[in-house]
């Protein structure tokens, strides 16, 4: 085996999360770090997201995905932050031994002081839904279609049905229309879109593409290439197809936008515990997992709607990892029982799931998704059963991540045992 290199901070993934974490760690003073990226260039999934709408929060202007990535890539290059592309991490051990392989450098092993997991997420495939029918050509995820169209100038098909209304599905409905394909319908199982409202408006409504809520694809036809799908309305309560509502749509392509799954195979190899809800690591307020020195941020932690939020979260992970490298005990040394953070009524997938003591931050940044659409709602935060914060929201939907910043002065972090967040409809 090759000699093991020692590096203070290894960042796995050179997408928006990894880049922002690297820049923040560097600016905090870290000089021994390395970004490992499996693609031939930095930027991750942003490189195929050629639509605009990125950067409104971070850069206060509207950028395309590649432009947004380029801002961070330039920051990395200007600082001389080392990165290695075309490199796949094969394994991360609980002791933070990182094994990676690349054509240029072969197999390398790096002993990392701290690791930031920034591998992003992947799309749920058809098989995960077990949609009955044939296994013909003409069925792919919207992200795969986006790559083919935007990076390779290839066209997946001409008569398109999209199942699922996640953001990539919405964006691709518009994109396929713009390249001259016919998007016949966007079919969504739930009674609401799982994408951002602005994308529903700008990508479907503006192009007269029907959004069929509470509908799903119940059969796939076609021996060799897809020839059609059967859709049906579903009962919103049971999500089961309603007999008699079946309708056949002749199409040559079915694009799937049915969910994103944080890509945590490496996290598992490192021994990191994962949440059943977010499918990402369980972390504390410093984005530290339950494996010492292993941090997580971006879509590998929980799927975000906006890249700006990924960048902000990842910058926090970069600084926290740096603090760990300098003084590991600063983050775990208290030996005190952590404060549990749990999903209350109407809340799913709160991050972080626990607060390590002593709490040094002035406020705790809590994110979650409501479990349904709520109008005129209140986010209510309880500490050990006592309400410490209420915030009103005009509308909350599962398609938009909710954020609440809880000032740590509102409760006694030394004695608190549990924080619960609820969403309630205003009386």
């Amino acid at each position: 085996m090759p000699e093991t290199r020692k590096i203070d901070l290894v960042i796995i993934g050179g997408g928006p999360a990894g880049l922002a974490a690297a820049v923040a760690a560097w600016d905090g003073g870290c000089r021994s770090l390395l970004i490992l990226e499996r693609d031939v260039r930095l930027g991750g999934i942003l490189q195929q997201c050629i639509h605009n709408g990125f950067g409104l929060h971070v850069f206060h202007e509207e950028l395309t995905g590649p432009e947004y990535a380029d801002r961070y890539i330039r920051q990395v290059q200007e600082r001389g932050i080392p990165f290695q592309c075309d490199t796949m991490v094969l394994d991360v051990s609980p002791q933070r031994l990182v094994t990676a392989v690349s054509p240029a450098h072969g197999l390398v092993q790096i002993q990392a002081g701290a690791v930031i997991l920034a591998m992003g997420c992947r799309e749920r495939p058809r098989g995960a839904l077990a949609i009955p029918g044939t296994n013909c050509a003409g069925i792919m995820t919207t992200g795969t279609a986006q790559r083919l169209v935007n990076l390779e100038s290839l066209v997946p098909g001409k008569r398109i049905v999209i199942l699922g209304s996640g953001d990539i599905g919405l964006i691709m409905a518009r994109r396929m229309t713009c390249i001259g394909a016919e998007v016949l319908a966007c079919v969504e199982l739930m009674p609401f879109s799982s994408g951002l409202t602005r994308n529903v408006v700008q990508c479907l409504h503006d192009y007269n593409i029907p959004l069929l809520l509470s509908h799903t694809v119940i059969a796939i036809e076609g021996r060799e290439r897809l020839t059609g799908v059967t859709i049906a309305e579903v009962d919103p309560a049971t999500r089961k197809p309603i007999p008699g509502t079946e309708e056949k749509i002749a199409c040559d392509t079915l694009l799937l936008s049915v969910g994103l799954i944080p890509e945590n195979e490496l996290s598992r190899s490192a021994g990191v515990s994962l949440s059943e809800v977010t499918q990402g690591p369980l972390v504390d307020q410093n984005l530290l997992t339950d494996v010492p020195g292993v941090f997580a941020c971006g879509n590998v932690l929980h799927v975000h709607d906006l890249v700006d939020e990924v960048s902000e979260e990842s910058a926090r992970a970069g600084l926290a990892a740096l603090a760990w490298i300098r003084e590991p005990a600063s983050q775990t040394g208290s030996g005190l029982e952590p404060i549990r953070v749990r999903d209350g009524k109407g809340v799913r997938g709160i991050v972080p799931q626990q607060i390590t003591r002593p709490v040094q931050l002035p406020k705790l940044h809590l994110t979650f998704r409501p479990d349904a659409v709520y109008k005129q709602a209140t986010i209510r935060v309880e500490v050990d059963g006592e309400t410490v914060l209420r915030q009103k929201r005009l509308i909350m939907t599962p398609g938009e991540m909710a954020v609440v910043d809880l000032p740590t002065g509102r409760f006694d972090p030394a004695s608190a045992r549990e924080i619960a967040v609820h969403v309630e409809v205003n009386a």
Partner: protein
Amino acid sequence: MFDVTVIGGGVIGAAIARELARYRLSVVLLERKSDVAEGTTKANSAIIHAGYDAKPGSQKARTNVLGNAMFEDWCAELDVPFRRNTSLVVAFSDADLPGLADLMARGDENGVPGLSLIDEAELRRREPNIGPKARGALLAETGGICCPYELTISLATHALLNGVEIRLNTPVTGVSRENGTFVCQTPQGPVVSRALVNAAGVYADTINNQLSEDTFTITARRGEYVMLDKRFGPAFKATIFQMPTPMGKGVLITPTVEDTVILGPTAEDIEDKDDVRTTAAGLEQVLRVAALSWPQIPTRHFITAFAGLRAHCDRNDFILGEAADVPGFFNAAGIESPGLTAAPAIAAELAGQVADRLNAGKKDTFNPPYLARKPFRLMSHAEREAAVAADPAYGRIICRCESVPEAEILEAIRRPLGATTLDGVKRRARAGMGRCQGGFCAPRVLELLSRELGVPQTELTKFGGASRILSGTLGEMAEPQPRAAQERTGETHA
């Protein structure tokens, strides 16, 4: 003119062709699909059955037990995966327990070694995830699992390396016997031979009934499956059967040699012999029945569903050997379960009969099989280091779910009987077999296929025929024509 034509490139046809290649015979194999193993062979339970289930005295019972004993060496020679993971037939009520003893008695009569009855405690010790209603089981120590398509690709490649001509995309549209020779009509012209082997799977009746008065009928009996992510591979060590029914061996749960888990099959007789769709009712049935064996099926972790067709013969047994009224015409028909297990026995036997009929002796030399390198995903880090040092293409991972490097994709395309389709690459290199089902690697594999085969990506298919993956390039697209607003009302669903 060839000495022998083999119709069908499934495991049976490929195995027979490879055995025929040991003789001084010119052999051609005709396969209607774009690859071998594209029919029943690619979609079944992949079980090497012990042999307790088949009716004593039947061809199924005889060749099952013989084939099972041969399987280890067969797979070892070809260096394809095989594991004797044992089989368990589980009784889920006290009323089923006598049935286990009956099965064991039947197995003894068939000459199956390694059978024993185990009690509930022993069953739970072996399989902690078994359902709460389990009361005991028949343990078959010779039960195993293999990878049928990998095996078949290896068999066909070995045949190829020993002179057998493999013609893909060559459906037999008609067959006749003229002046003592056999003529297979194909879109590429007639293929003439002195002997003919019928290994046409669900279509074996069509071939036989054109030549022999002794007709039979093959019914396609569809079986649907779901597959679980390899994270759940350790859930069961053995293959878990429920009590057999007249339609088959029932819904089983088994680990695969690739460490995924499959659940299924259903059994449904269908008219259309190409209809391998899955159905809502079928998948629901698999889950409902399998829940008896495994109440906590992790339904969030399915990676795919598929269906295959059993070639069920109205005679309820394999039809093996020379047709009494057509000298030189040999059947390997009605090969449903335990056909995969029986394949080594059937192939050796039939090839011997064909050689006898044609008075052919064995060749002096038999070339060794094509052995792919150990897959990257199974290598130690030290082996990986050496592989990348020797060939940098081992350092570029194309399929992240199954850790398949570019070097292995290229090998899958360049090897003898190399892949020409996306599914061909998938079955040779495992790219696209994992949890993302090709979402990540498919565009990269298409690029490599295009480059290696010199074919534009837009011409590439999933599995031949009209199964094109792409419809064109951006440059070819017409100007966009967004629909007018009034159309929208007509198409909006209330």
